[in-house]
Protein backbone atom coordinates (compact mmCIF):
# COMPACT_ATOMS: atom_id res chain seq x y z
CA UNK A 1 0.00 0.00 0.00
CA UNK A 2 1.79 2.96 -1.29
CA UNK A 3 0.08 6.32 -1.13
CA UNK A 4 1.63 8.50 -3.77
CA UNK A 5 -0.63 11.42 -3.03
CA UNK A 6 -2.73 12.86 -0.26
CA UNK A 7 -5.86 12.25 -2.35
CA UNK A 8 -5.22 8.54 -2.37
CA UNK A 9 -4.61 8.59 1.35
CA UNK A 10 -8.02 10.17 1.83
CA UNK A 11 -9.63 7.49 -0.41
CA UNK A 12 -8.50 4.75 1.91
CA UNK A 13 -11.61 4.30 3.97
CA UNK A 14 -11.22 3.77 7.60
CA UNK A 15 -8.54 2.10 9.66
CA UNK A 16 -10.41 -1.22 9.82
CA UNK A 17 -10.52 -1.78 6.10
CA UNK A 18 -6.90 -0.77 5.73
CA UNK A 19 -5.61 -3.31 8.22
CA UNK A 20 -7.88 -6.05 6.90
CA UNK A 21 -6.56 -5.60 3.36
CA UNK A 22 -3.05 -5.25 4.63
CA UNK A 23 -3.31 -8.63 6.30
CA UNK A 24 -4.31 -10.21 2.97
CA UNK A 25 -1.64 -8.32 1.02
CA UNK A 26 1.02 -9.49 3.42
CA UNK A 27 0.09 -13.07 2.68
CA UNK A 28 0.03 -12.30 -1.05
CA UNK A 29 3.36 -10.46 -1.05
CA UNK A 30 5.23 -13.19 -2.90
CA UNK A 31 2.57 -13.80 -5.59
CA UNK A 32 3.11 -12.85 -9.18
CA UNK A 33 1.13 -10.26 -11.19
CA UNK A 34 -2.24 -8.88 -10.21
CA UNK A 35 -2.88 -11.34 -7.36
CA UNK A 36 -0.10 -9.46 -5.55
CA UNK A 37 -1.38 -5.90 -6.07
CA UNK A 38 -5.14 -6.06 -6.62
CA UNK A 39 -7.18 -6.86 -3.56
CA UNK A 40 -10.01 -8.65 -5.43
CA UNK A 41 -7.53 -11.08 -6.95
CA UNK A 42 -5.28 -11.17 -3.92
CA UNK A 43 -7.99 -12.31 -1.56
CA UNK A 44 -9.01 -15.16 -3.90
CA UNK A 45 -5.43 -16.26 -4.39
CA UNK A 46 -4.75 -16.11 -0.66
CA UNK A 47 -7.80 -18.23 0.02
CA UNK A 48 -6.66 -20.82 -2.46
CA UNK A 49 -3.14 -20.73 -1.07
CA UNK A 50 -4.41 -21.35 2.45
CA UNK A 51 -6.43 -24.35 1.24
CA UNK A 52 -3.31 -25.72 -0.42
CA UNK A 53 -1.34 -25.16 2.75
CA UNK A 54 -3.90 -27.09 4.79
CA UNK A 55 -3.82 -30.00 2.39
CA UNK A 56 -0.06 -29.73 2.12
CA UNK A 57 0.42 -30.32 5.81
CA UNK A 58 -0.93 -33.84 5.36
CA UNK A 59 0.72 -34.39 2.00
CA UNK A 60 4.10 -33.42 3.36
CA UNK A 61 3.92 -36.23 5.89
CA UNK A 62 2.99 -38.71 3.16
CA UNK A 63 5.73 -37.41 0.87
CA UNK A 64 8.34 -37.70 3.57
CA UNK A 65 7.19 -41.22 4.43
CA UNK A 66 7.50 -42.17 0.77
CA UNK A 67 10.95 -40.62 0.52
CA UNK A 68 12.16 -42.46 3.63
CA UNK A 69 10.77 -45.68 2.27
CA UNK A 70 12.59 -45.17 -1.04
CA UNK A 71 15.82 -44.43 0.77
CA UNK A 72 15.60 -47.31 3.22
CA UNK A 73 14.62 -49.83 0.55
CA UNK A 74 17.45 -48.57 -1.67
CA UNK A 75 20.01 -49.09 1.06
CA UNK A 76 18.52 -52.37 2.29
CA UNK A 77 18.64 -53.79 -1.21
CA UNK A 78 22.36 -53.02 -1.36
CA UNK A 79 22.68 -55.81 1.21
CA UNK A 80 20.25 -58.14 -0.56
CA UNK A 81 17.22 -57.61 1.69
CA UNK A 82 13.89 -56.35 0.44
CA UNK A 83 12.25 -53.48 2.32
CA UNK A 84 9.41 -55.59 3.71
CA UNK A 85 11.71 -58.36 4.88
CA UNK A 86 14.05 -55.77 6.41
CA UNK A 87 11.34 -53.94 8.33
CA UNK A 88 9.53 -57.08 9.48
CA UNK A 89 12.62 -58.84 10.70
CA UNK A 90 13.79 -55.74 12.58
CA UNK A 91 10.39 -55.73 14.26
CA UNK A 92 10.76 -59.41 15.15
CA UNK A 93 14.20 -58.68 16.60
CA UNK A 94 12.64 -55.96 18.76
CA UNK A 95 14.50 -53.13 17.01
CA UNK A 96 11.87 -50.41 16.85
CA UNK A 97 13.58 -47.80 14.66
CA UNK A 98 11.25 -45.90 12.40
CA UNK A 99 11.78 -45.20 8.71
CA UNK A 100 13.13 -41.71 9.35
CA UNK A 101 15.83 -42.92 11.68
CA UNK A 102 16.71 -45.81 9.37
CA UNK A 103 17.02 -43.42 6.41
CA UNK A 104 19.24 -41.12 8.47
CA UNK A 105 21.39 -44.06 9.54
CA UNK A 106 21.66 -45.21 5.93
CA UNK A 107 23.00 -41.82 4.86
CA UNK A 108 25.12 -40.71 7.79
CA UNK A 109 26.09 -44.00 9.41
CA UNK A 110 26.32 -46.59 6.65
CA UNK A 111 28.26 -49.01 8.84
CA UNK A 112 25.54 -49.05 11.52
CA UNK A 113 22.99 -49.59 8.79
CA UNK A 114 25.01 -52.44 7.35
CA UNK A 115 25.00 -54.12 10.76
CA UNK A 116 21.22 -53.72 10.94
CA UNK A 117 20.82 -55.08 7.42
CA UNK A 118 22.92 -58.13 8.16
CA UNK A 119 21.07 -58.74 11.40
CA UNK A 120 17.72 -58.50 9.64
CA UNK A 121 18.90 -60.77 6.87
CA UNK A 122 19.84 -63.50 9.32
CA UNK A 123 16.55 -63.08 11.12
CA UNK A 124 14.58 -63.14 7.86
CA UNK A 125 16.29 -66.37 6.83
CA UNK A 126 15.45 -67.94 10.17
CA UNK A 127 11.84 -66.85 9.90
CA UNK A 128 11.69 -68.05 6.31
CA UNK A 129 10.67 -64.69 4.86
CA UNK A 130 10.66 -64.08 1.12
CA UNK A 131 12.76 -61.40 -0.56
CA UNK A 132 16.26 -62.45 0.51
CA UNK A 133 18.70 -62.16 -2.38
CA UNK A 134 21.87 -63.32 -0.69
CA UNK A 135 22.50 -66.56 1.12
CA UNK A 136 23.21 -66.34 4.78
CA UNK A 137 25.19 -68.36 7.31
CA UNK A 138 21.96 -69.09 9.14
CA UNK A 139 20.80 -71.27 6.27
CA UNK A 140 23.17 -73.96 7.42
CA UNK A 141 22.22 -73.95 11.10
CA UNK A 142 19.79 -76.73 11.77
CA UNK A 143 16.98 -76.26 14.26
CA UNK A 144 17.77 -72.60 14.88
CA UNK A 145 14.17 -71.62 14.34
CA UNK A 146 13.04 -73.73 17.27
CA UNK A 147 15.78 -72.35 19.52
CA UNK A 148 14.83 -68.74 18.89
CA UNK A 149 11.16 -69.33 19.49
CA UNK A 150 11.69 -70.39 23.13
Amino acid at each position, binding site marked *: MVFTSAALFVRARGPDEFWRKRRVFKLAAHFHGRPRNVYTFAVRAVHRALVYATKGRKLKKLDMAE*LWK*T*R*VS*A*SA*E*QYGVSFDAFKNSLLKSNILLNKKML*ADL*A*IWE*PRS*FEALAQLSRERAVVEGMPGIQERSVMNQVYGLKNLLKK
Partner: protein
Amino acid sequence: MSILKRTQQWATFARTWHIYDCTWQNPFDSAKVVKNHLMGLHKPIYHPMNDCGDHVVLINTGEIALPGDEWIKRVYFHHTGYPGGASWTLAWQLHEKDPTMVMKKAVYAAMKGNLQRRHTMQRLHLFPDDKVPEEILGNVTSQIKQTRVVPKRLDHIDKETLENFPAIMDYPKDYVLR
Protein backbone atom coordinates in the same frame (compact mmCIF):
# COMPACT_ATOMS: atom_id res chain seq x y z
CA MET B 1 35.58 -28.66 5.31
CA SER B 2 38.45 -31.04 5.69
CA ILE B 3 40.01 -32.75 2.70
CA LEU B 4 38.59 -36.07 3.85
CA LYS B 5 35.05 -34.75 4.08
CA ARG B 6 35.37 -33.02 0.74
CA THR B 7 36.51 -36.23 -0.90
CA GLN B 8 33.68 -38.10 0.76
CA GLN B 9 31.18 -35.57 -0.54
CA TRP B 10 32.67 -35.78 -4.01
CA ALA B 11 32.60 -39.56 -3.97
CA THR B 12 29.03 -39.67 -2.71
CA PHE B 13 27.66 -37.52 -5.50
CA ALA B 14 29.89 -38.80 -8.28
CA ARG B 15 28.17 -40.59 -11.13
CA THR B 16 28.83 -44.30 -11.43
CA TRP B 17 28.69 -46.16 -14.71
CA HIS B 18 26.81 -49.46 -14.66
CA ILE B 19 26.71 -52.11 -17.34
CA TYR B 20 23.76 -54.41 -17.97
CA ASP B 21 23.77 -57.39 -20.29
CA CYS B 22 20.35 -57.71 -21.98
CA THR B 23 20.95 -61.23 -23.30
CA TRP B 24 17.76 -63.27 -22.80
CA GLN B 25 16.26 -60.59 -20.56
CA ASN B 26 12.71 -59.34 -20.61
CA PRO B 27 13.04 -55.64 -21.54
CA PHE B 28 10.15 -54.58 -19.32
CA ASP B 29 11.38 -56.35 -16.20
CA SER B 30 14.90 -55.09 -16.87
CA ALA B 31 13.61 -51.55 -17.41
CA LYS B 32 12.43 -51.40 -13.80
CA VAL B 33 15.92 -52.22 -12.55
CA VAL B 34 17.68 -49.98 -15.07
CA LYS B 35 15.32 -47.11 -14.24
CA ASN B 36 16.26 -47.33 -10.56
CA HIS B 37 19.93 -46.90 -11.43
CA LEU B 38 19.29 -44.13 -13.95
CA MET B 39 17.26 -42.08 -11.49
CA GLY B 40 19.47 -42.84 -8.49
CA LEU B 41 16.65 -44.69 -6.71
CA HIS B 42 19.20 -47.27 -5.58
CA LYS B 43 21.03 -44.73 -3.39
CA PRO B 44 20.17 -43.79 0.17
CA ILE B 45 20.74 -40.11 -0.68
CA TYR B 46 17.94 -40.14 -3.25
CA HIS B 47 15.67 -37.12 -3.49
CA PRO B 48 13.50 -36.10 -6.45
CA MET B 49 15.32 -32.76 -6.64
CA ASN B 50 18.73 -34.33 -6.15
CA ASP B 51 20.52 -35.06 -9.40
CA CYS B 52 22.14 -38.30 -8.27
CA GLY B 53 21.34 -40.65 -11.17
CA ASP B 54 23.97 -42.90 -12.69
CA HIS B 55 24.91 -43.85 -16.23
CA VAL B 56 23.77 -47.23 -17.49
CA VAL B 57 25.29 -49.01 -20.50
CA LEU B 58 22.97 -51.60 -22.00
CA ILE B 59 24.72 -54.16 -24.16
CA ASN B 60 23.34 -56.95 -26.35
CA THR B 61 19.95 -55.27 -26.69
CA GLY B 62 19.46 -57.27 -29.88
CA GLU B 63 19.38 -60.44 -27.77
CA ILE B 64 16.41 -59.55 -25.57
CA ALA B 65 13.70 -62.14 -25.04
CA LEU B 66 9.94 -61.68 -24.86
CA PRO B 67 7.55 -64.16 -23.23
CA GLY B 68 5.34 -66.38 -25.38
CA ASP B 69 4.16 -64.76 -28.60
CA GLU B 70 4.59 -61.20 -27.38
CA TRP B 71 6.79 -60.42 -30.35
CA ILE B 72 3.64 -60.42 -32.50
CA LYS B 73 1.20 -59.24 -29.84
CA ARG B 74 2.97 -56.08 -28.69
CA VAL B 75 2.30 -53.16 -31.00
CA TYR B 76 4.01 -49.76 -31.11
CA PHE B 77 1.85 -46.85 -32.25
CA HIS B 78 3.03 -43.78 -34.07
CA HIS B 79 1.13 -40.90 -35.60
CA THR B 80 2.69 -38.42 -37.98
CA GLY B 81 0.05 -35.80 -37.17
CA TYR B 82 -1.39 -35.77 -40.67
CA PRO B 83 -4.74 -37.41 -41.50
CA GLY B 84 -4.20 -41.10 -42.07
CA GLY B 85 -0.77 -40.80 -40.52
CA ALA B 86 -1.29 -43.51 -37.92
CA SER B 87 0.91 -46.56 -38.06
CA TRP B 88 1.18 -49.67 -35.95
CA THR B 89 4.43 -51.60 -35.79
CA LEU B 90 4.75 -55.06 -34.27
CA ALA B 91 7.48 -55.48 -31.70
CA TRP B 92 9.52 -57.85 -33.85
CA GLN B 93 9.34 -55.49 -36.83
CA LEU B 94 10.54 -52.61 -34.69
CA HIS B 95 13.29 -54.84 -33.34
CA GLU B 96 14.29 -55.75 -36.88
CA LYS B 97 14.54 -52.07 -37.83
CA ASP B 98 16.45 -51.01 -34.72
CA PRO B 99 17.59 -53.62 -32.19
CA THR B 100 17.91 -50.99 -29.44
CA MET B 101 14.47 -49.43 -29.81
CA VAL B 102 12.35 -51.91 -27.82
CA MET B 103 14.70 -51.66 -24.86
CA LYS B 104 14.91 -47.87 -25.09
CA LYS B 105 11.14 -47.48 -25.19
CA ALA B 106 10.76 -49.90 -22.29
CA VAL B 107 13.06 -47.81 -20.08
CA TYR B 108 11.43 -44.59 -21.23
CA ALA B 109 7.96 -45.93 -20.43
CA ALA B 110 9.06 -47.25 -17.05
CA MET B 111 9.77 -43.70 -15.86
CA LYS B 112 7.16 -41.18 -14.86
CA GLY B 113 6.56 -38.54 -17.50
CA ASN B 114 8.07 -35.31 -16.23
CA LEU B 115 10.58 -32.73 -17.39
CA GLN B 116 13.42 -34.76 -15.95
CA ARG B 117 12.70 -37.88 -18.01
CA ARG B 118 14.41 -36.84 -21.23
CA HIS B 119 17.51 -35.67 -19.35
CA THR B 120 17.60 -38.96 -17.47
CA MET B 121 17.38 -40.83 -20.76
CA GLN B 122 20.56 -39.06 -21.89
CA ARG B 123 22.41 -41.13 -19.31
CA LEU B 124 21.30 -44.36 -20.98
CA HIS B 125 23.67 -45.84 -23.56
CA LEU B 126 22.34 -48.66 -25.72
CA PHE B 127 24.31 -51.03 -27.91
CA PRO B 128 22.75 -53.80 -30.04
CA ASP B 129 25.74 -56.10 -29.46
CA ASP B 130 28.77 -56.27 -27.21
CA LYS B 131 30.82 -53.85 -29.29
CA VAL B 132 31.08 -50.85 -26.99
CA PRO B 133 33.43 -47.92 -27.67
CA GLU B 134 36.50 -47.90 -25.48
CA GLU B 135 35.78 -44.46 -23.99
CA ILE B 136 32.43 -45.70 -22.68
CA LEU B 137 33.62 -49.10 -21.53
CA GLY B 138 36.51 -47.44 -19.71
CA ASN B 139 34.08 -45.64 -17.38
CA VAL B 140 32.17 -48.72 -16.35
CA THR B 141 32.83 -49.81 -12.78
CA SER B 142 29.77 -51.79 -11.83
CA GLN B 143 27.52 -54.46 -13.22
CA ILE B 144 23.76 -54.75 -12.65
CA LYS B 145 22.45 -58.21 -11.87
CA GLN B 146 20.29 -59.73 -14.57
CA THR B 147 16.62 -60.34 -13.80
CA ARG B 148 16.46 -63.73 -15.51
CA VAL B 149 18.88 -66.61 -15.67
CA VAL B 150 20.27 -66.92 -19.18
CA PRO B 151 19.16 -70.33 -20.47
CA LYS B 152 21.75 -72.59 -22.00
CA ARG B 153 21.20 -74.34 -25.30
CA LEU B 154 21.55 -78.11 -25.28
CA ASP B 155 24.10 -78.05 -28.10
CA HIS B 156 26.17 -75.43 -26.24
CA ILE B 157 26.49 -77.46 -23.05
CA ASP B 158 29.94 -78.97 -22.81
CA LYS B 159 30.41 -82.69 -23.37
CA GLU B 160 31.54 -83.45 -19.84
CA THR B 161 28.33 -82.09 -18.26
CA LEU B 162 26.22 -83.89 -20.84
CA GLU B 163 27.82 -87.22 -20.13
CA ASN B 164 27.85 -86.93 -16.35
CA PHE B 165 24.35 -85.54 -15.86
CA PRO B 166 22.27 -88.03 -13.82
CA ALA B 167 19.71 -89.94 -15.83
CA ILE B 168 16.15 -89.94 -14.53
CA MET B 169 14.73 -92.31 -17.09
CA ASP B 170 16.07 -95.56 -18.48
CA TYR B 171 14.88 -97.18 -21.65
CA PRO B 172 12.79 -100.30 -21.12
CA LYS B 173 14.42 -103.56 -22.03
CA ASP B 174 14.09 -104.48 -25.67
CA TYR B 175 13.75 -100.81 -26.62
CA VAL B 176 15.04 -99.98 -30.07
CA LEU B 177 17.25 -96.91 -29.86
CA ARG B 178 16.62 -94.17 -32.38
